């Protein structure tokens, strides 16, 4: 099992990094031929950075759209961020002070994350319009995330896992030195699901995470009259 999980995580990490890296490179290289910010939009680059910050930290547009989706979605994402940061303690020795500080909040965040996911999933059944647009993979993705949250919480509150050993395993993994992993069902489940999430990331709607930064309607400044904007392939038309 030690070897299996070690191999799995090496594989999942490479797929995640290479897959997402390639996607980002692809987005980066694909030109945006026309300026299409959704206006009113900031007129300066600094303004664009602020708009993007509001979008990714506060979900500004979603807030305008629907308070329920905003509340549940924001709860889930912020909790997930806290939980992820809390997990840094498994990869750092000594643990950074601020990571130590957020540990207790991270526990609440685990529950909040699960609650957000349950709420989001409930909408896919209860709201007619959302039921209509939900695909099988939308449900699977929620099941996967909820499985990760549940198995994680289980290790904390139901059957305690020897997390010191887990930490040894991951610290070892980072140095290509495979250490034993506690033989523990919730842990196996948790790790397997996390690896699965990493594997599907570059091929699924999880690409919304890098995607939002490349969205022309949000990341372009509103300055078309002041500055000429021309894509390389479009410039070639002028040479004709």
């Amino acid at each position, binding site marked *: 099992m030690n070897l299996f999980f070690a191999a799995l995580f090496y594989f999942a990490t490479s797929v995640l990094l290479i897959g997402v890296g390639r996607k980002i490179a692809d987005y980066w290289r694909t030109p945006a031929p026309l300026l299409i910010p959704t206006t009113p939009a900031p007129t300066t680059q600094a303004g664009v950075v602020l708009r993007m910050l509001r979008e990714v930290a506060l979900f500004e547009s979603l807030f305008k759209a629907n308070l329920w989706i905003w509340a549940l979605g924001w709860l889930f994402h912020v909790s997930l961020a806290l939980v992820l940061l809390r997990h840094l303690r498994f990869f750092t020795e000594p643990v950074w002070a601020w990571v130590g500080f957020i540990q207790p909040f991270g526990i609440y965040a685990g529950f909040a994350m699960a609650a957000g996911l349950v709420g989001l999933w409930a909408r896919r059944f209860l709201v007619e319009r959302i039921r209509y647009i939900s695909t099988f993979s939308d449900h699977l993705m929620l099941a996967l995330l909820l499985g990760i949250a549940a198995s994680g919480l289980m290790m904390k509150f139901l059957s305690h896992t020897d997390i010191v050993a887990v930490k040894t395993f991951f610290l070892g993994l980072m140095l290509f030195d495979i250490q034993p992993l506690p033989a523990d069902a919730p842990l196996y489940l948790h790790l397997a699901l996390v690896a699965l999430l990493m594997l599907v990331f570059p091929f699924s709607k999880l690409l*919304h995470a890098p995607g939002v930064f490349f969205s022309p309607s949000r990341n372009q400044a509103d300055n*078309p009259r002041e500055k000429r904007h021309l894509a390389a392939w479009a410039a070639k038309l002028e040479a004709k």
Partner: protein
Amino acid sequence: MAGPEIKAPAFREYPTVPVMQPGAMEGLKPFIANEKIQADLNFPGPQLAENWQQTHDTAIAKMGELLGQQRALKVYLDSCVHCGACTDKCHYYIGTGDPKNMPVARQDLMRSVYRRYFTLPGKLFPKLVGARDLTPEVLDEWYSYYHQCSECRRCSVFCPYGIDTAEITMAGRDILDAVGYGQKYSNEIIGKVHKIGNNLGLPGPALENTLEGLEEDVLEDTGIAIRYPLDVRGAEVLLVTPSADFFAEPHIDSLIGYGKVFHAAGISWTMSTMASEAGNFGMFIGNYEQLRKIALRVREAALELGVKRIVVGECGHAWRVAYSFWNTLTGIGDGANDPFAIQLQSQLDHRYKQPMHICELTWDLIRQGAISFDKEANDHRIVTFHDSCNVARGSRMGDSPGGQFEIPRNIIRAVANHYVEMAPGTTHEQTFCCGGGGGVLTDDLLDLRVKGALPRMEALKQVVDGQGVNFMATICAICKSQFTKVVPYYGFKMSMIGGVHQLVSTAIRLGDK
């Protein structure tokens, strides 16, 4: 074509989200462009569809080409998480209840095909991720539902990733054109622009005649000789306006207004036969080369007439193209360092914004005190303002974001005493489309147009009943045409629709100062 009688949907007591009616608008199709119309635009004719394999391969190849050229398309097709934020935002969904008119569902018509041909999970497990093969039925569905979108961008305001369904619709139409499945209305109009110079197909002599008649009418009306000049070399301003302004009601009243503003301010101006159309349906069909080719007429006219300024009349999508795209497409603007654009930009007077909206021009003159008004002349009107989608969400006026909302309102307040806002959530960036934009302003889509107007009509009814509004001003030729056609279905008079410069025209002080 005697179809079933078209009826407006009932006003909703509260603007709740409509009950879903799957299939309500299924199979609705605007007329298909024939071979000749297609050929004029260098698109293949409909006979390509007889060979399915070839159609299929051409469509997928075109999709691949667009994915390589347009970051927006690629990012938008990847990023949607089906959160549902957009589902109740489209006026066509609100008016029809057809779930495929929810922005996300409209996008998914293409996203499902994108997944199948361009992503790994779609190739391996199509069922799991909702991917599907491109079939004749899918193509028909595209044709139907990509012509039930007015590219108004309202959904893009609410999407947490800024996904703009207009971009998907444009790509969809571009692919359809590439396989000979073009829309008659838009493509025929583009053909007319290339051949004759404007969407309505008014040839030069007719235009000259119309403007002479207009000068006589205005003289009779005001006692003042106001000029509506055409093709005057060396004029300071080239006015490019939608061709509907030359003869359609109520459009022409705004054209009269532009002329009075230029006259009162003493600015020399001209229109152009070559660029006798501000509209650019190349945007509607999502074809960059058509968009560019149509825009280049304005560049040519500006160079030929030697004008110093380019001003655009009241037209929504035309202003989006002019403001956001002209600098890119034709070099009309500022801040270029390439010879192509510099040729024109060195001719233009950069103390002024290039291009400039007629409302920017008028508002500047009002602020300088260069023109003045008898506001009482508009006292018989209680005015509200409809923000046109392309102006609101695809452009700007003035120096700061949101100027596109403030400037037209400032003008109205300067020329009329009674002004009323419609409900928040239906104006400014959240404005509802008139229901006729984006290339659907055709009688074969009248049912859709009537239904799509519902949310705007509800907001209008509120201020008509509550505050006695009897005039809805707008700055878009399509809005004007659409509203005059559909408001009677909702029990309003078509005479309550008009332009901002129609109000200006009523109140402006002429006389020789």
